[in-house]
């Protein structure tokens, strides 16, 4: 595995040279661009005057050096431009960017960019190689297009919340904005597939992705089961209906997941429990899946696990050949040597915010993801981007400020601003 270890900055970036224009707010769109940015794409993020909504969405209204952790989580390695798209001059500037870019991503209301003259038919005229992706709750056409969506809407309208939760209790949404993050991943996959195709043919394309569909796509056997049996899929807590045993059990000092599906693993578990009678009766995995058998087996395991510690059960699993592991929380992951060794969690020194520790996107590979810098104050890279990409002079840039086409942070809104102790220079790339 020597190829995977070592200094991540010595390894190549797979998306080097790919320029992405991000016209997004909140989590879903910015996360899609973030996945590309950590793998080496140059992402230019355009922000509306009111600011990305995540500047104001943060746990318990907490801010760190004026930075919202909710903004940081899906914004890395990006270049930040504050630009008012409603201004006719902004449109001309954006066309110039499109000419020199590979990908455009937006998650505004479907049709909003088109109203600004930035729809795909126009962009492909300017650059036939452009790949434009739009992502929204329900897609750019269809009976529900135009409806506002959030992560929690996709989780509920797609059926995920209904099947998540304890038996006989309320439906639950995930503790994280899972529909946003996973839909963003579908976007990133589609974009790289389109880049791959473009490499062969030179052709760009338009991609439409919808949040509720992503949730539906990953609900495994749910739809076929409902279709064939006419029954709903209900909530069963941590029990896996298609694998037995696979459940979370109460121990003396916490919870432990125990899984043992193959005949051999189940035999190992029964040996560890001193319950070969269970093995003799339920060796066949399909027999174990019958509801009555599954309930019996899981209840027997629960009785056995109750007076043991989590680590006792993990050790028994290693000894007898089944799978068992405890529930990892953020503190354990943060302090885990394993995830640091794997660069799944990375520490870096940000010029504005100092030392930061964050997860870095998988998978681990020979062209790996990396964290270079975090989120930025509004309009932080205006001069750098306009000068470097479009070759604008400082005079032209000044004029754009005066005309209200571009702007920086509003000093009255702290979460748009640099940290209070900022020296006016740190982190600036130009001038």
């Amino acid at each position, binding site marked *: 595995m020597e190829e995977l270890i070592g200094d991540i900055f010595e390894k190549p970036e797979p998306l080097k040279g790919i320029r992405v224009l991000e016209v997004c707010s909140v989590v879903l769109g910015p996360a899609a661009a973030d996945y590309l940015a950590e793998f080496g794409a140059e992402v230019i993020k355009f922000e509306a005057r009111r600011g990305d909504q995540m500047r104001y969405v943060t746990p318990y209204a907490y801010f760190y050096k004026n930075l919202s952790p909710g903004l940081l989580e899906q914004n890395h390695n990006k270049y930040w431009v504050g630009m008012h798209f409603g201004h006719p001059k902004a449109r001309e500037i954006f066309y110039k960017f499109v000419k020199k870019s590979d990908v455009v991503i937006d998650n505004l209301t479907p049709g909003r960019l088109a109203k600004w003259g930035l729809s795909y038919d126009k962009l492909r005229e300017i650059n036939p190689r452009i790949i434009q992706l739009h992502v929204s709750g329900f897609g750019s056409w269809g009976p529900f297009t135009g409806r506002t969506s959030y992560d929690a809407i996709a989780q*509920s309208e797609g059926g995920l919340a209904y099947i998540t939760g304890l038996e006989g209790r309320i439906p639950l949404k995930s503790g994280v904005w899972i529909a946003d993050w996973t839909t963003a991943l579908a976007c990133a996959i589609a974009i*790289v597939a389109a880049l*791959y195709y473009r490499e062969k043919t030179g052709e760009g394309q338009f991609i439409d992705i919808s949040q509720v569909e992503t949730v539906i796509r990953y609900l*495994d056997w749910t739809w*076929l089961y409902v279709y064939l049996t006419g029954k709903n899929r209900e909530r069963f807590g941590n029990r896996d209906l298609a694998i037995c045993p696979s459940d979370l059990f109460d121990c003396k000092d916490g919870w432990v997941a125990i899984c043992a599906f193959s005949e051999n693993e189940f035999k190992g578990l029964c040996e560890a429990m001193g319950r070969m009678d269970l093995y003799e009766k339920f060796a066949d995995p399909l027999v174990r899946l019958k509801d009555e058998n599954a309930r019996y087996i899981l209840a027997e395991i629960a009785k056995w696990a109750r007076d043991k510690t989590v680590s006792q059960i993990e050790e028994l699993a290693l000894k007898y050949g089944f799978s068992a592991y405890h529930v990892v929380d953020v503190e354990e992951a943060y302090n885990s040597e394993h995830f640091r060794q794997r660069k799944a969690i990375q520490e870096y020194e940000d010029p504005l915010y100092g030392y930061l520790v964050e*997860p870095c996107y998988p998978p681990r590979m020979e062209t790996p993801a990396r964290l270079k810098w975090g989120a930025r104050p509004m309009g932080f890279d205006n001069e750098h981007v306009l000068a470097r990409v479009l070759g604008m002079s400082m005079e032209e840039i000044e004029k754009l400020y005066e005309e209200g086409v571009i702007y920086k942070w509003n000093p009255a809104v702290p979460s748009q601003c640099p940290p209070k102790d900022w020296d006016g220079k740190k982190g600036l790339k130009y001038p």
Partner: protein
Amino acid sequence: MEERKIVGFAIDPEYAKFIHSITNPADILGKPEALDDLVVLDLSYGNFAGIVASSFLAELGAEVIKIEPPNGDLARKMTPEGIMIGDAGLAYIVEARNKYHITLNIEKEEGREILKKLVKKADVLIETFRPGYMDSLGIGYRQLKEINPSLIYCAITSFGQFGKDAEKFGKMTGYDLIDQVRGVVMSVTGEPELDPDVPKELKKPVKAGNWMGWYVGGMWAVFGILLAAFYRKRTGKGQFIDVSPCEGLIAIANYLMQYYHMTKMEGEPKKMVRAGNFDYAVFPYTYVKSKDGYVFMSGFTDPNWAALCEIMNRPDLQKQYPTIRERLNPYNQPVIQKEIEKFTTQYTSEELLKMVLDYSKKPDRKGTVVTGRLNSPKEVLEVEHLKVKEMFVERKDPNYGKVLVQNSLFRFMSRTPGRIKWICRPIGADNEFIYQKYLGLGKEKLESLKKEGII
């Protein structure tokens, strides 16, 4: 198609019609496929992360050859209530789309020789065995890259190929639940810790109802494989990819780690507790009871909260909790929730949706309220929008009968849409075709391999 079904609530109907014209499902089969030059060998066993990864690639046009041991992949038996149709369970049938199914016993020397011949013709290999297993058979990445230096080799395991946990626990078989418990997300999913009405024994982590660990892990694998394929197109170089699905969950666990780290830098690290359907960064943004099931209800910014209070005719609530500081207080949230439910339980979800939509048309509205029904799976299957978009594919499969599966997410790529060509294949059903096509093995040779237990 009726115009209404295309334009819906679009702010720009012309835009909706234009996008429909370039992503019309009726045109999909006449369009090219993005990955039609990739051959993928999927050796995953008893693990849906691998199966999902090859499914996505198959939807995008890759030629996926699923290689099973002669008795079939154990994943075929991972099925609710043990329901099988012939040799495949429901979960397997859903994720067998567009794949060729062959058998091969890689524990025998001749089987390994055949695999090596296939690897010469392949671009991508996916496997989910415990780390070191393939290597010990002489067919790990180290050996296979000698045969095919541009090979993209993707290994998916719960603990990864290296690292402290892999050393200790790497020999354990991977499961969705193991990936979920290691993925941090589960630690914050569950009934609310701070709601006194929830019994103590129910305050525990709850997994996502679906195979979230496997599906998210599989999607990250696809992302990695495509990045590697793109990189290879430009450089000719293959590579090794190490997917540990739990890392795919940790990486999308909102701001949990950022918040922990920042508060630690300030002295005392802080963690989020399980919030149930509350959200400590946005509230109200929650599921509430209605007369007929649950609905999502939000109004979390100050103007939107004012709008929600106006719809409920509860100016007192707005006064009591005027800013996000009050509403993000975890002790206030269960109280506010119950106040909202006093209102919502008087109406059906349909009535609530209508009220919110009517309010959104008022010129003097104070803000935007968003609502949506919490659908049961049965209800999802009846949603008109999803039918119009062909979210589900109903087919009569020659081997598995009438089935319905979820469609490809990528079918609205204007140039290279994803698609489903066939649903599932029995164990070894494509042996003749694939072995003839790639290795020139005729029927007689296959018969003798069968007798030796190789295929």
